[in-house]
């Protein structure tokens, strides 16, 4: 017996045993990887849960009159969003002005570490959106919401990409856009708040004109297509309505606007501007040029802004004058129990039926747009601020007869439950 003899006693493990053991070890390694992934996911879920719980605890209301900080904004143009705040990540995002809401709810709770609501609005309903998110701020215990301006198309795309909590737009979501939401697994809620409308009215002694939006554009735009060469723009030469169209008499163009300039432009001027196909095509190909043509009004005395209180006097002095009013101002009774303007100014100058909720609903009144709000359904489940804002959309304080949105020009539809489109 020696080393060589003893070493010779060794033998290889049975191949079948070696293969089987190797298979088991490989399987064990794969199971460990899967278990590791599962543990990681579980850990993330736990951390997320703890974070949510912490947020909810921080939300716990505390009696205080402290309200969120206020950022006052300066409008640069009728359609430009307010100056972006430093805290905003988006160039178009702005802090909501505290004073944008007509009536202030009682601020009973202090600002908490809530998740801020992201709210996108198109330019036309922006005052309504500002009031809504401003109201949310004034409750005092929600984080400062982020309000961003976008056109309807972009706003709805952003919603379906899951990048915002709410959007407020001037049309309902299209089937293709809804399909996009479904594709990305974004469940949405829809509220139809009502309509925004402007009315072009004249004094009782005036003769109706039956203006089309195209007539309004040709009468009030700073530059209009040259009748001789429609692809060329010229300074607006029209002085009388007869200059605009031969079917009108030669009364002078004099229009005073007491509604929001954005509403007047979007509801009465832009549709007329877009009646020129080459200008309409600029909307998608050269947006700045489109806005330069369709949103720039003449600066002579043919068009002016006007205080609502002076309308009656202004119309009395010259029967041919036209005034632009938002529908609610036109329809509402004044505080002095005078007759509503709708009764004192019975002559509406736009072609088509008289402005009523019925003609807005059936789409026959031309200077009206619906107001829709869409929200990500799942966000309402876990974001308390978003849920509160959703509740406000059907709150009589907002959309009731004396609601703060109604006072901003909203023509509310009958209150109804939100629904899934």
């Amino acid at each position: 017996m020696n080393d060589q003899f003893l070493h010779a006693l060794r033998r290889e493990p049975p191949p079948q045993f070696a293969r089987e053991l190797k298979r088991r070890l490989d399987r064990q390694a794969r199971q460990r990887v899967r278990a590791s992934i599962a543990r990681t996911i579980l850990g993330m879920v736990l951390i997320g849960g703890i974070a949510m719980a912490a947020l909810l605890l921080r939300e716990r209301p505390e009696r205080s009159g402290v309200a969120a900080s206020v950022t006052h904004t300066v409008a640069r143009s009728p359609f430009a969003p307010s100056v972006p705040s430093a805290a905003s990540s988006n160039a178009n995002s702005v802090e909501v002005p505290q004073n944008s809401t007509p009536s202030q709810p009682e601020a009973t709770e202090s600002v908490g570490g809530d998740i801020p609501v992201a709210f996108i609005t198109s330019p036309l309903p922006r005052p309504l959106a500002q009031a809504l998110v401003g109201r949310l701020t004034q409750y005092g215990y929600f984080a400062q919401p982020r309000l961003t301006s976008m056109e309807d198309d972009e706003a709805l795309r952003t919603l379906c990409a899951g990048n915002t909590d709410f959007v407020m737009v001037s049309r309902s979501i299209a089937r293709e856009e809804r399909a996009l939401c479904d594709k990305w697994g974004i469940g949405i809620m829809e509220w139809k708040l009502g309509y925004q409308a402007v009315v072009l009215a004249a004094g009782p002694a005036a003769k109706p004109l039956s203006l089309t939006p195209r007539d309004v554009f040709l009468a009030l735009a700073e530059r209009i297509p040259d009748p001789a060469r429609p692809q060329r723009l010229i300074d607006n030469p029209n002085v009388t309505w007869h200059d605009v169209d031969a079917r009108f008499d030669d009364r002078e163009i004099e229009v005073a606007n007491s509604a929001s300039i954005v509403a007047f432009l979007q509801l009465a001027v832009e549709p007329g501007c877009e009646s020129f196909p080459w200008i309409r095509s600029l909307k998608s190909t050269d947006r700045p040029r489109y806005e330069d043509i369709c949103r720039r009004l003449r600066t002579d005395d043919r068009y002016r802004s006007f205080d609502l209180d002076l309308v009656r006097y202004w119309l009395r002095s010259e029967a041919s004058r036209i005034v632009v009013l938002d529908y609610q101002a036109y329809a509402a009774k004044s505080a002095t129990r005078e007759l509503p303007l709708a009764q004192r100014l019975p002559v509406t100058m736009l072609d088509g039926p008289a402005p009523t909720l019925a003609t807005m609903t059936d789409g026959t009144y031309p200077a009206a747009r619906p107001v829709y709000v869409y929200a990500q359904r799942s966000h309402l489940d876990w974001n308390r601020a978003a849920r509160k804002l959703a509740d406000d959309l059907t709150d009589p304080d907002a959309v009731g007869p004396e609601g703060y949105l109604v006072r901003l020009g909203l023509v509310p539809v009958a209150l109804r439950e939100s629904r899934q489109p």
Partner: protein
Amino acid sequence: MAAKEAVAERSLNLPSTGAAGWDALYADHLPRIYNYLRLRLATEADVEDLTARTFEKAWAARARYRRDLAGFTTWLYRIAHNVCIDYLRSQRAHVPLDAAAQIAAEPTPETDEERHSDLTRLAALTSSLPDRERELIALKYGAGLSNRAIAPLVGLSESNVGTILHRTVQALRSQW
């Protein structure tokens, strides 16, 4: 042998070793662990069972293996040693290697038969040895480790390992 172990040790930089590295370790150490246990245990079934148990423990704990604390061979044989000791303690009436002759072995070539009979005879001789000497014999001639590799496993110096092994083999030879 020492060079081979050194190569094996270099390839044992486990955390950075991928699946291929573990495959190489498995191929290198499976016969060693298997033969180490073969010189410590009575039956083939136990040898395979404890070999599997050793590798499963090592594979399950490989993420926790720290190269700065011990070489891989040291770490792996500690696991094998502990697995073996736990098993032997649990077998009250075990007789190491004594029952090797009764293994219901599969039909093997003639050389295997001779080897089995030599192994049985060796088992009979080592059964009277102290635990430390039997461990050294298993590590040296079963696992095929060098004296240097054995030393840290049993807590002796390399020269002591050589001396004890020399005396043990001399004693076995005299009784063969």
